[in-house]
């Protein structure tokens, strides 16, 4: 059943999206913009379906890098945030480095990493993704581990609970929603980072290299078909992170985060 409120939620973005595409199409047709300059959405969709198998293949290459980086970055981020919640000064050490790294375009760092590993290796790209994910996860999970209700900690102490028990029964569960918040941010970012990392070199099998080579060849519609694939991949990652969140917190945590938002 499509309830009224559901329609009301879905309608505006739908109307907006469709009218945006129509406007785009109209501008391209109306001003007779040539395909080398700006491709019409209809052409992009046409290319998308025509090249679907290749887009799928390229997406799976970039997607694999994103996924591995996402997992590695999350694991490192979680581990590090445990250390961070234990030793406060670590946070002060890591923050400026994070800011500095954030100011360097990722493909520049990948170029450096490519020299450190091998240009044919996927590792630099995965490292790059993990690095980006790592900081997002670190910041959020560390917050979740430290910002616990003082009542909870006192209560545990009154049970003569050890630090480890407090960590396990209070800090970790408290950090779970924060972890998912981080994942929601990190999931699409990991996809972007993954294919942007292909910009300056390396194996030519992912979305990023397809986009650049098609643009360089004045095949704009094809390039944007890959961009569309990239957007869809990013949205898929995002959707999966949401599904994971609701699956993992079927009980209490989910509603709590919703209330806090």
């Amino acid at each position, binding site marked *: 059943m499509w309830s009224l409120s559901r329609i009301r939620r879905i309608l505006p973005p739908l109307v907006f999206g469709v009218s945006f595409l129509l406007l785009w199409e109209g501008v391209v047709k109306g001003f007779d913009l040539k395909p080398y300059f700006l491709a019409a959405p209809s052409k992009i969709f046409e290319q998308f379906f025509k090249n679907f198998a290749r887009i799928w293949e390229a997406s799976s290459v970039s997607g694999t890098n994103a996924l591995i980086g996402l997992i590695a970055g999350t694991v490192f981020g979680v581990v590090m945030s445990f250390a961070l919640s234990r030793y406060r000064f670590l946070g002060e050490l890591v923050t400026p480095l994070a800011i500095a790294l954030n100011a360097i375009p990722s493909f520049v760092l990948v170029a450096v990493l490519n020299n450190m590993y091998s240009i044919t290796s996927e590792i630099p790209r995965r490292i790059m993704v993990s690095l980006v994910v790592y900081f997002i996860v670190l910041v959020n999970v560390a917050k979740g581990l430290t910002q616990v*209700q003082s009542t909870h900690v006192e209560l*545990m102490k009154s049970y003569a609970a050890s630090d480890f028990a407090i960590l396990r029964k*209070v800090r970790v569960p408290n950090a779970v929603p924060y972890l998912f918040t981080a994942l929601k941010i990190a999931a699409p970012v990991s996809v972007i980072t993954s294919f942007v990392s292909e910009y300056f070199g390396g194996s030519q099998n992912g979305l990023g290299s397809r986009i650049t080579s098609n643009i360089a060849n004045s095949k704009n519609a094809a390039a944007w078909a890959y961009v569309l694939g990239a957007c869809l991949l990013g949205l898929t990652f995002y959707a999966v992170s949401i599904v994971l969140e609701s699956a993992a917190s079927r009980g*209490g945590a989910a509603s709590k985060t919703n209330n806090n938002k």
Partner: protein
Amino acid sequence: MSAVQVTGVSKIFNQGTPKQVDALIDVNLTVEPGEFVSLIGPSGCGKSTLLRLIANLLEPTTGSVTVNSKSASQSRLDQDYGMAFQQAGLFDWRTVAKNIELPLELKGWDKDKRAARAQEMLELVKLPEFAELYPWQLSGGMQQRIAIARALAAHPPLLLMDEPFGALDEMTREYMQGELLRICAETSTTVVFVTHSIPEAVYLSNRVVVMSPRPGRITDLISVNLGAKRNEDTRAAADFFTGITAVREALRGTHADHANAGAVRGVEDR
């Protein structure tokens, strides 16, 4: 043998620094088994500090605290007491039953025994059918009752409560007071209870401990006796109002300079 024995206790925070606070000075207090004692006094007079000292969440600067003739730290390790706070402080990610089981888990009880006890406690607080719900699905008063159930789960002989009903509206509060009295009578638990409300202190207690700030100390001990069978009518009884008036009088002294007392906050640490 007394349930709680506080002897010559002082608590000074940040001793020797410019931020030094004399939270408690030379406090002596004895609580008998089965007794219900309330701590009342203006904000900052050290009620919570005294409760934390008894719970061994803080160490006294001088003096000693014993609970059931053991040192405070030993009785904490033995889980000789249960605790409840103004915020129910339930864990959102645990069901009601699992919340109640928490102290038992930490004591290493096995699963079946824990579940049985949780169900027993839920019956005690009259919420047996809510075991599998999550705390945020309950009203404030119900959450507070779960918190009490949790505090009592290990059957501790002593219950320490820091303004447990402070966040409830007056009607729910009065209902909860009745419930607490009933539960404590059933389990013959000793209670040390911090509150800001004079009627609450009078209604609940055998004795009301009146405290005053700067430095924190006990200024009065007022015995109240509304009888074992308190009910709604008690609140309309003359004894009740007499008790209220007595406590108010005792407090008046602690409150002389209230108008702008403790006024400017945070000035010290700027």
